[in-house]
Each structure stands twice: as structure tokens, then as C-alpha cells.
């Protein structure tokens, strides 16, 4: 029985962070786990920062992860990994997609955007273990341009301590996502999994 497993998904609106949380939660549901999902909807459509908390296991009561309590962070955008540091601790395994999405002030040179090294350095200082994945490229190369979220899911499933099983995740992909995109999503999933497979 899983006591408590906390997955945090951090993204920019439009990247599919909410869809990813649905896939994970439905997989956990199929697996018969207790689940709490906390989401801030509303800003998702318009390019704002979006966070989903998915808490699995008997001891998950609140829908928000206690500070420092994430077991896994799936960051679909590099600076979004840094934004949620409050929830990270020395036990957190972080998967970061390396492709940045720049806000307009950054493009105009009016605001700074951290380098990938700065971000990973800051997270390592917290004690996190970091896995860097170019999920946007994997999505492109597997001809699944809108599936970078599922590529990150594949990478997560390559980590040995993933609580979900491959079968339930694939079943959830089938049940949760539109059938016409299933092939694309499975390709992106496989691409992400291989990127972190040892």
C-alpha cells in the first residue's frame, strides 16, 4: 500500500500540465489508490503559470502538498521548476523540460530569465536530484508536437521509484485522451521513457 506519494506538475498555460495531471490521477484511480488533486484553474488558458498537485496514498488528505514535501516535480518549463521551489526538499526528484517559454518583458530585454545552470544549481542546493530532458524536442522528433507533457510522463515512468505501473499509465492514456491522438501520445511517451532509461 502506498502511504504518501506527492507529484507536483508545474507548467505554463497551454503546455498540457492539467491534462498530464488528469492522466496521472486516472492511472492512480485505476490502480485503486487514494487520490487528492489540487489545481488552480483559470490562468491555464492564457499563458500564466499553472501548478497541479497530485497526492497519492492513504495519508494524502489535503489537496496541496506540504512545503518541502514533493516526491517528484515534473516541470514542463525550466523557470517553472524554480517557481515552485517551496514544495521541494532533499528527497525530491525533478524532471525538467529544457525548452523555455519567454514572457514578453524577457523578449524585450526588460526582465531577466535564468539560465538552465542557474536553475539546476539552485535546485541542487535544496538537495533535489535533477533529470534534464529536452521533452519539446522529443515531442517534435516523435511527430507529436503537442505532447511534450506526455514525453515528460514517459521520463517520469523511467525513474525506478515511480509508484504507477506502466500498464495503468497506458490504460489511462487510452481512457483520458482523445483516441485520435493516442498514437502520437504513445510515441511521445516512449521517447520520454527512453531518454531517461538507464
Amino acid at each position: 500500500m502506498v502511504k504518501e506519494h506527492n507529484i507536483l506538475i508545474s507548467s505554463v498555460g497551454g503546455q498540457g500540465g492539467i491534462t498530464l495531471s488528469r492522466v496521472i490521477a486516472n492511472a492512480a484511480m485505476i490502480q485503486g489508490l487514494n487520490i487528492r488533486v489540487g489545481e488552480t484553474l483559470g490562468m491555464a488558458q492564457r499563458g500564466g503559470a499553472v501548478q497541479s498537485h497530485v497526492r497519492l496514498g492513504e495519508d494524502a488528505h489535503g489537496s496541496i502538498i506540504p512545503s518541502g514535501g514533493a516526491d517528484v516535480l515534473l516541470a514542463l518549463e525550466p523557470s517553472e521548476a524554480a517557481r515552485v521551489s517551496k514544495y521541494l526538499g532533499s528527497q525530491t526528484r525533478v524532471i525538467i523540460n529544457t525548452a523555455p517559454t519567454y514572457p514578453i518583458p524577457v523578449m524585450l530585454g526588460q526582465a531577466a530569465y535564468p539560465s538552465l545552470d542557474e536553475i539546476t544549481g539552485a535546485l541542487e542546493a535544496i538537495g533535489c536530484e535533477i533529470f534534464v530532458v529536452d521533452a519539446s524536442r522529443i515531442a517534435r522528433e516523435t511527430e507529436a508536437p503537442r505532447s511534450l507533457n506526455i514525453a515528460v510522463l514517459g521520463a517520469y515512468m523511467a525513474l525506478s521509484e515511480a509508484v504507477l505501473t506502466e500498464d495503468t499509465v497506458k490504460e489511462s492514456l487510452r481512457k483520458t485522451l482523445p483516441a485520435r491522438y493516442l498514437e502520437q501520445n504513445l510515441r511521445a511517451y516512449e521517447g520520454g521513457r527512453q531518454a531517461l532509461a538507464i
Partner: protein
Amino acid sequence: MLDEEGSHKLLMGNEAVARGAIEAGVHVAVGYPGTPSTEVIETLSRYAEQAGMHVEWAVNEKVAFDIGAGVSYGGARCLVTMKSAGLNVASDSIVSVAYGDLVGGLVIYVADDPGLHAGMEEEDSRVFAALSLLPMLDVSDSQESKDAVVKAFEYSEQHSVPVIVRSTSRVAHGKSPVETGPIQKVPRKPHLARDISVFTRASPVWCKQQHTRLIEKTKALVPSVETDFNRLKMKKGQRHGVVASGVSWNYLMDALSRHGVDVATLKIGSVNPLPVNQLRELIGQVDRLLAVEELEPYIELRIKAMVADTDRKVKVLGKQDGTLPSVGEYDYDLVEEAVLKLTGGEKRCDDELAARQAEASSLAPRRSLPFCPGCPHRGSYIALNQAIKELGYKQDEVIVTGDIGCTILGMHPPFNSCWNEVSMGASIGVTIGLKQAGVENPVVATIGDSTFFHAGMPPAVNAAWGDTPVVIAVLDNEITGMTGHQPNPASGYNALRKPVPRIKIEEILGAAGIKKIKVVDPFDLEESKEAFKEALQHDGPSAIVLRRMCALVARRQRLTGPPSHVDGEKCTGCLHCVRTLSCPAMEIREGKMEINQNTCEGCGLCAQICPFQAIEGGDQ
């Protein structure tokens, strides 16, 4: 949503409310969109036909509630939904209907927003239970949300009183497992029998009797709520107790299971009536009591009053002694710290870790919310700003009042147009007041279509009646955009997506008595600018309807144009377009503007403002 009894589903709080309505055999569901309550009607509208339920959006919350009262008087069950601000709008009717009797069950679902995920105010609707004297349930997760709605209908019919079910963002938008119950078939009853001593407030004698009865009705619910929605767990000898309600209850459960502390707990699921017997039992035994509730110290003050009525000394921890805040939402850490303060434990603080976490977060750039690519409001504000400038005013010489919705995003750079934001429809009344106060320069109100129908019509009549020279700019994107694209009378279809005739805002404005009205396309900057210039110079009330479908709706209906292109040869890299329009489809590569071909909606605004004609597009 229509699964049989005993199914296990992972549902969002609002979906669970919808399921509760289906189980309760609700005949009519009506609401006005507002985060975080919107998904109830959205969910029900998808299953309305199969479930044999009538589902509709009203133009505002008061109208929604009045419809609900009518449904009840007509003998059927009605669920009315709204966000906390909507309760203010509906309150006039609610307080009155509360005094009378009902026929069919009437339940109001209201969702608050501690933590301000959707902006606006952090209003605590529980206080409205004290004001209206109505029964109110307060839920912690999806299962409770569903169960509360089903029970609320029972209470409502048993006691002939409207019942409020109150939720909050984290519950309404959070997901947790739900076990479904049976779907009831509830027969409609005959409509109300004429009895003006019950159904009018016209006589003080009747009203006093009604007032007395209302108090008795709510009080009579104490035994039911104590078994249905409140749980006291207390062992002999426990000296510490915690009372918690809403989402805080879950954080408390997390804290207790992590720390294994030994405290008595009382889960409060009914705000009105409170479980007074259980509270009395708790107060009779413990010496220290912690009240955990978001926003106002509603329960805490009641506990203190109850303690004062006894001869016991009980130390009450909560907001008043600074243990917990009344601003913002709660989380695990706040509740954990409060529990440890109660029991004399010490919270292990890792300052070094906190500092590292803060340092890492500070790296993240701000992501402000711009208009979407292809948003028509972008054109409206550019045209307004250009008109102000061409008439020889500086931007800070013409007051532009803002209103609720995506339209208010015009307050941000690079537009910097709107000066204020009050409440639905207020933009127009405020311009009238500015004029009455003696502001000489033109004043402009900007308001969206849904907001205009909600509360913008009365002040438009006022402007015409008083012949006050204000400019009413209705940014009509034919949808309720900010809350996630619910139809309104300007959309041409209803909650079930069935086509219905559009109601034209210019015709309403004309009928209101405004003589100078122009309808323009905000993607045509020249036309829109000229309309603003005329209106700004007009010496009576005037209106401009800037009509163009919301880009996200247009995209879904495949009505947006092909993406625009930048001619790299002609682009000088001045970035005037990026600075002026701040469109998220724009990218900068090697100093020049490039247009993202996946996200550009081909609105053509950038092509119209490029000083070097380097952009091609916008032929929709």
C-alpha cells in the same frame, strides 16, 4: 455523471455538486458564471437532456435566484449557482425569500475564493448565513460536496427554507474520490397555493411572524446536521481540542497523521446552525481549543461566546490571538504550526532550507496575463488610446473606467488604459459620477458584453436619462470570456449550445435612450479610432459597440484567419509591434520579430501598426 449507485469516481468538487444535483432529482439548474463555481452548470448542461433537467445560464445572480424561487413556488426542485460576489447581487431576493415558505426544494451553491486565485475580493460567504439566517453547509472535499447537495434538498423541503451549500476554490477545483448514491426520481408538486401572508413581505405583522418562523426552521435542523455533517471525536481525558471546517479540515488530518498528536477534534460541516451540542460537549472538557477556518473568525467568535456562557476557562486559539491569519488561503504548514502551538510542540524550522527555496523561486520571471493572440480587446484599447492621443489629450488626461472580465486586462502595459475596477457594471455608473463631480475632459467606460447584460443596462439608462456626456464602450466578444466562455444573450446560443436569436446590445442602448451609437470591428483600427474620436467629442451620452468574437471561441469554431507573416527583409527590428501590442504569438529572433505560426490567429492588428509594412496578414 449518470453512473449508477455505488460507482467510484474521481471528481472535481464542482462536478460532485453537479452529480449531487442529479442524485437529488433536481428539475432546474440555473446560475451565472463566476470562478470557482462555473463548472457546476457547465457539467450539468452536458447531461441535462439525458437527466431530464432544465439547465440555463441567467444574466446575473439575482435573476438566477429569482428563477430558482419561481421554480420552487412552481413545485419543482432548483439548484442555483454563483461565486461569492454573486451572492451580493442575489442577496436582496435571498433575504426576502428566506422569510416565506417554499414548495419545491431550493438550494444555493456559492463558491468563495480564499487566496484570490481568480482575483476580486476574499469575501467570506459564511457571514451571509448570519445575515440571512439561512441554513448553510460548508464542504471539505468532493464526497462532501455531493452529499451536501443531496441532503440540502431534503432539509429544504422538510423545513420549507432555502439551504446554502458553500465551498471554496480548493474544494471546488480540487479532485478527490466520490462514491455515488442513488439517482432519485422526484415528482413535481402542485404549485404554491395563494397565501399572501406567506409569500409577500407587505405587512409588518406577517413579516414578524415570518422572521420568527425562519429562526425556528434553522434551529430545528440542529439534530440533523449534528449527525449528518459534524463529527466530534473526543476521548476521556483529552485536554486539547481542534475545531476545523472547509478545506482546513484536510490539512488538519495531514498534520495529525504526520505528528500523531493526541487531540479531540470537531469537524464542522454546518455553518448555520452550528453543532451547538457537540461544541458544548467539547468546551465542557478541553482546556485549550484551536479554531481552524479560512477568512473571518466566524466559528471562533461563536465558540468564545459559548465559553463565556459557561463557568469554564477555555483558552481559544485562532485569529484573534494571531495564531492564524484571516487573509489568504490556508495550507498544511499554517495548520501544522497552529496545531503544534496548541499542544505545546515545536515546529521544526529549517531556515536554511527555506532560504534556499526562496532563492530558487526568485529566479522565476513574472508571467503577467496578456490578452490572447488575436484577442479583439487588443484592437479596442489601441484604437481608444490612438483616439485620445489624436484629439490632443495625454493618456493621463482622459479617465477610462474598467469593468470585470478580460476587458480589464487593458489596465496592464502596454495599453495602460483602464484606471479602476469596481464590480460588474460599475464602469458606467462611475463615469456618470465623474462627470457630476465636474471632470471636464471626456470619460470612457469599457465593459464586456456579459457584464453589460449583468448590470450595465441600468446605468446606461441613467446616463441617457440624465443626458450625461459619457462614452460607453461595450467590448462585445459575444461570449463570457474571463470565466471560460459561457454563452450570454449576445452569443446566439444557450447553455445547451442550441441556437437562439442574438440580443443586440446596440438595440438595447438605443431603447435605453442613447442617441449616438456606433457598431465597429475592433480589428479595423481606423474605423474604431474614428468612432472613439467622434464619441469623445460628443456632448451627450454615446456608445460604441466593438464587436468581434473572442479569439479562443473563434479558434474552436475554426473561424480565425491564417497566421500572419513577417517579411524579414522589411522588418527593421524596431519592435514597435511587440511594444505596442504585446501579443504572445510574437517572438524575437536575432533582433527581429517573428510570428509563431501555431499560435497566431491572423487578426492583422500588427500588420496595421507596423511602420514599415513588414507584416502581411489579417485578411479574414
